[in-house]
């Protein structure tokens, strides 16, 4: 270990390498998230990001005080929305801070670009946080591997591509970093780290509703440790500090408010906090009592307290003192719950249970490294490993229930995969115990393993690194030896010490842990160094690696063979993983959904920009306070792009209002007109895919609108009326009368057969259209190029009090105007 290269000690070399590798991982993490910008443009994606973007702009323009007290009159007309009190402000404040900092440095960046690139930048931070977490629970090798995995794992990329400006973009970083700080504070028993955990927990609370996961998982960890008899003062200090500061801090977010004191989601944390105090007290009592008596007393007390606590919780929940769990949480236990009781939750595709292929699609080989990681964690069960196991199990369960919770699963899968891979590397790259040291082969094996890393590290190819490599390669085998050797011996040596400390649980010394960490770093040197070496393998091969090189022998080759096979296998898997991640990212997760792309037969890409066309039309051609009715999916986009008043939007806080909109769209024209007038609606916007075959259109969502409306207005809207006599959901001649008369149907198919000819055909439903669609109370205002968005104006009441039907009969068929 005393070899000095470039005046650096081996330890310095490894940290340099680690930093370089982490830098490269960050670059890859950011780079692979830029497909959307390159393919399309720097635009805010999807739905929720548009709200975040709009509020960020408001924050930047009006300052924090106004933002904090902002009441948005243009949303949920006429109810309005208290934005300051119903928003997780973390992401807006983050962007605004970055924006202001950049402007202070005279870097004139647009708010939009800050927002677009925020998620990729934070994904780099996530990679670093994951590295820290991996290092905390195992060693730097595992950390680096985990960082490399999370940098490109599609499960996380799906929510963090450039333009996907959503809470999750920064929340995953905060989640991982909070867990890292928590584990460190538990390991060290440090109040400072406990407080830091609380600070980052506060940041997390301010950023994402998923903070509930943290505030349940950490108490669960504490509880599990208590039950396992692993109580320690470190645990007491860590949790008490974290809980008190974290809870007080979280209550400063208006949206959370006093929830931590009365909702079920937060009760586990409170209960655990109380339990911990009791256990601490019991421990104090133990010092005054004989041991065996005390054990019995303690177990009994813990058990009875748990029973009493849970019983009390149930009782209080039932009597209504503690707010019952919200529907979204019920649907976590019973996947059928939402469909029956809360259609509005079930209607969102990301709340559906996950299909099996999704796991593989989003995590690829990591998903089968997860059990291996759990196994390795069990083999060496520290406090931290208990946490990892709990996290894995719970996140895996939740990810199975709701598609979008794969997101919370991804970090732990990456960490677990990092642990498994690190174990594999350590086992199979260790050529120390072979009959005799054979350098040629070892170079090969390390090379292959290293190449694997180099793949995940994105073709680590920097020219200037080769200098490093050349210089370090001479010390390669020495490191390898030192690393793997010292690991074994170090393990042995420290082993007793460590297990002892763990068993007693009270004498856990910082020194031992730190030493452990530095010892465990050593194998990393082998891997990382050789990773770099692999890049210049031909060169390093030609060099005499070590003066003390033993001779080649077939026996040793024979012993090496299984290692080579295994490593080659994993190399292949890692290559496939990287390839899969890039492919998934570019093909599935980089579409902004605001702008669509289609490929024509000759291979050229055709951009379909109907949404922005329609929103731009509204922005330019309607009164600034015009009220636009649409299904709630488009609320945020309307507010963000068209800057018009909306009735409902993606913040689905008022089910009745959404049901009313559903009722308007599902009713016949006259009822709809009356309701629309009552809500001061000026325009109705529908999305129609029948022309170009866009299947995510309103007709396909229509059944959900009906269901939601039926939930509130069971007398006026009935789902069964919308199916024809064969029980099919038809839109053509065979459709039911209610369906044909519904406003949604009329608005979508109005004049459609004029453009499609007599054999008019819906390209999504593959059905023939009804022959004619009449529309009296609404008039077509705008239809986009591909007919994807259709905007109708709600006619004014007739000046003479006639019905619009009578007026159109009098006026006869309108002369068709030019539409495009």
């Amino acid at each position, binding site marked *: 270990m005393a070899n000095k290269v470039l005046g650096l000690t081996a330890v310095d070399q490894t940290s340099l390498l680690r930093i370089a590798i982490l830098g490269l991982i960050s670059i890859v993490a950011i780079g692979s998230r830029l497909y959307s910008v390159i393919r399309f443009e720097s635009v805010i994606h999807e739905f929720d990001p548009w709200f975040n973007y709009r509020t960020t702009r408001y924050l930047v323009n009006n300052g924090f005080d106004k933002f*904090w*007290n902002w*009441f948005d009159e243009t949303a949920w007309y*006429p109810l*309005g929305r208290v934005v300051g009190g119903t928003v997780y402000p973390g992401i807006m404040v983050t962007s605004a801070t970055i924006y202001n900092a950049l402007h202070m440095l005279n870097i004139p960046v647009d708010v939009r670009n800050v927002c677009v690139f925020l998620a990729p930048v934070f994904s780099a931070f996530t990679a670093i946080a994951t590295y820290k977490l991996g290092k905390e629970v195992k060693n730097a090798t595992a950390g680096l591997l985990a960082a490399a995995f999370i940098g490109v794992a599609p499960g996380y990329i799906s929510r963090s591509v450039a333009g996907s400006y959503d809470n999750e973009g920064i929340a995953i970083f905060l989640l991982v970093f909070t867990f890292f700080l928590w584990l460190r504070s538990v390991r060290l028993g440090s109040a400072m780290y406990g407080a830091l955990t609380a600070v980052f927990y506060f940041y997390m609370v301010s950023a994402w509703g998923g903070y509930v996961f943290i505030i349940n998982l950490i108490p669960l960890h504490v509880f599990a440790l208590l039950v396992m008899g692993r109580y320690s003062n470190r645990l007491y200090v860590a949790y008490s500090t974290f809980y008190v500061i974290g809870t007080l801090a979280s209550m400063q977010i208006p949206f959370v408010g006093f929830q931590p004191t009365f909702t079920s989601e937060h009760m586990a944390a409170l209960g655990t906090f109380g339990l911990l105090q009791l256990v601490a007290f019991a421990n104090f009592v133990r010092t005054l009592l004989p041991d065996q008596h005390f054990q019995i007393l303690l177990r009994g007390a813990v058990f009875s307290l748990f029973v009493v606590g849970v019983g009390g919780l149930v009782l209080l929940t039932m009597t209504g003192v503690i707010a019952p769990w919200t529907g979204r949480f019920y649907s976590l236990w019973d996947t059928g719950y939402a469909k029956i009781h809360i259609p509005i939750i079930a209607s969102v595709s990301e709340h559906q249970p996950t299909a099996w292929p999704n796991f593989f699609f989003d995590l690829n080989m990591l998903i089968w490294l997860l059990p291996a990681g759990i196994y390795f964690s069990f083999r060496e069960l520290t406090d931290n490993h208990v946490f990892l196991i709990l996290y894995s199990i719970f996140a895996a369960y939740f990810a199975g229930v709701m598609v979008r919770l794969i997101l919370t699963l991804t970090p732990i899968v990456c960490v677990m995969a990092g642990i498994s891979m690190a174990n594999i590397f350590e086992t199979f790259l260790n050529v120390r115990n072979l009959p005799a040291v054979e350098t040629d082969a070892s170079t090969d094996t390390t090379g292959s393993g290293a190449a694997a890393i180099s793949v995940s590290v994105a073709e680590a190819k920097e020219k200037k690194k080769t200098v490093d490599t050349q210089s370090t390669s001479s010390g390669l085998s020495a490191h390898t030896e030192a690393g793997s050797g010292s690991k074994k011996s170090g393990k042995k040596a420290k082993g007793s010490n460590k297990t002892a400390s763990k068993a007693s649980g009270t004498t856990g010394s910082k020194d031992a842990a730190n030493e452990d960490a530095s010892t465990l770093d050593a194998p990393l040197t082998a891997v990382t160094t050789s990773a770099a070496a692999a890049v210049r393998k031909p060169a390093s091969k030609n060099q005499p690696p070590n003066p003390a090189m033993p001779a080649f022998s077939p026996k040793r080759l024979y012993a090496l063979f299984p290692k080579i096979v295994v490593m080659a296998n994993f190399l292949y898997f890692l290559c496939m993983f990287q390839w899969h991640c890039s492919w998934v990212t570019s093909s599935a997760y980089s579409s902004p959904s605001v702008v669509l792309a289609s490929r024509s037969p000759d291979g050229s890409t055709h951009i379909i920009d109907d949404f922005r066309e329609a929103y731009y039309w509204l922005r330019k051609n309607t009164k600034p306070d015009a009220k636009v009715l649409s299904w709630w999916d488009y609320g945020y986009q309307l507010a963000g792009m068209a800057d018009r008043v909306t009735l409902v939007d993606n913040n689905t806080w008022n089910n009745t209002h959404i049901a009313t909109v559903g009722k308007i769209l599902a009713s016949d024209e006259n009822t709809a007109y009356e309701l629309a007038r*009552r*809500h001061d609606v000026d325009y109705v916007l529908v999305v129609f895919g029948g022309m170009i075959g866009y299947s995510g259109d309103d007709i396909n969502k229509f059944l959900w609108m009906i269901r939601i409306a039926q939930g509130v207005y069971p007398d006026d809207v009935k789902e069964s009326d919308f199916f024809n006599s064969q029980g099919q959901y038809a839109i053509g001649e065979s459709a039911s009368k209610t369906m044909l008369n519904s406003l949604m149907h009329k608005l979508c198919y109005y004049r459609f057969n004029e453009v499609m000819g007599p054999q008019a055909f819906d390209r999504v439903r593959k059905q023939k259209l009804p022959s004619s669609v009449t529309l009296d109370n609404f008039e077509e205002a705008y239809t986009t190029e591909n007919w994807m968005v259709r905007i109708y104006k709600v006619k004014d009441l007739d000046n*003479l009090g006639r019905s619009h039907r009578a007026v159109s009969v*009098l006026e006869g068929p309108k002369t068709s105007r030019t539409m495009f």
Partner: protein
Amino acid sequence: MRVFASCVYLVLGGALLSITEAKSATGDRVLVLVPKAESSKEYSQVIASLDKRGFDVTLAQATNTSVSLHNYDRRSYDHAILLSPTTKKFGAALTVNDFIRFVDDGGNLIVAVSSELSDFHRKLSAQFGVEFEKRGMLAIDHINNLKEGNASDHTVIASNRFTDIPAVLSPQFVKADADPVYFKGIGHKYDAKSPFLIPLLAGKRTTYSRLESGKSNTAQDDSSLSGSSLGLVSVFQARGNARVAISGSTDIFSNALIKKGGSGNHRFVDDILQWTLQEKAVLREVGHRHYLTSTGEQPEHYRINNEILYEIDLSEYHNNAWHPYSANDVQFEAIMLDPYIRATLNRTQSADTKSTAAYRGNIKLPDRYGTFTFRVNYKRTGLSNIDIKDTVGIWPLRHDEYPRFLSAAYPYYAGSFAMVVGFLALCMAWLWNAEPSKKKNAAKAKSE
């Protein structure tokens, strides 16, 4: 040159005249359409009275192709009087829609027909909820009719069944034994449910409708309309305040009937003309404002439970000028889907000017945030509609506007202060007690 100059004077004079002596609140260009040029003599009294009141009357033959209601989509006239019931085609192919558009644009319309009305008129009046009897039918009354000496004409009926609308009719018609109005023409069915239509004059109990004598009169030609369901003259006010009068008789506008002694015809026709041409019962909102009682200023948005003042100035047009409008039923509403507040506004004398009356109300805004509509929706039969809407945001309290130091929270304050004191006491106790032993330990350690 002289001709040109005189033309200029004429135009200027006309313009001046119209400014100074304008009778109508909305304008004074009147188009009178008659079947033949010479038939204008028949209506000379009406036309003369219009002229006298300062209207700029254009008399034209209904079929004259140069007649049009709009010029480049703007109204060419403010009022139109159709006295040509048999005409099938007006002017330059004017359609029913053109007349409707004329009304939609704020033009006022008087339609008078006879029993020989054309389909055009039938279609036009149907748009206002008036359905005329079949062609050739007449309103007949064998008891209440025009009697001159011994002779009586059963087709000239005398009716005094008025709908009592003071805004439209003079007080003399309100009496039970008011002078009757002689009417010769066709009756109609009026849409009783329409809030826009007022059947101003209907038949008496003995009035019914049948084909003119001499024409075949089979049972199926009989009408079910009689008595009060048989409308004779109806008036209509559109949502946009344009006014329309529909009469089943052209004759009531003719000199012959107007001059009839012992009848209310002269006054009645005058009332119809004045009302329809917006010479009376015209209401308008001159201005309105709302502001915080405390500051007297209108903020960008209110907060819940704010005390505000709402004011609206109303004027009524009659006798050639705007006068303060007087009523005690002007209501204010604060609406968010449903009315949260409905309050009567009081007329305040001090704020009145010569032509406007101010109505004011102290309003306490609801304890509910949202986008509210402040609305004064004043619709009274015969008067112009006033519908004033303001969209106003009512915001929740700011984070620093909530009440502090609630008495209910005193136990908590006491608790936290007790905690602080206790913590300090504990610290002190700890410091004073633990220090010496620690020092000793440290010293021991050092020495070792």
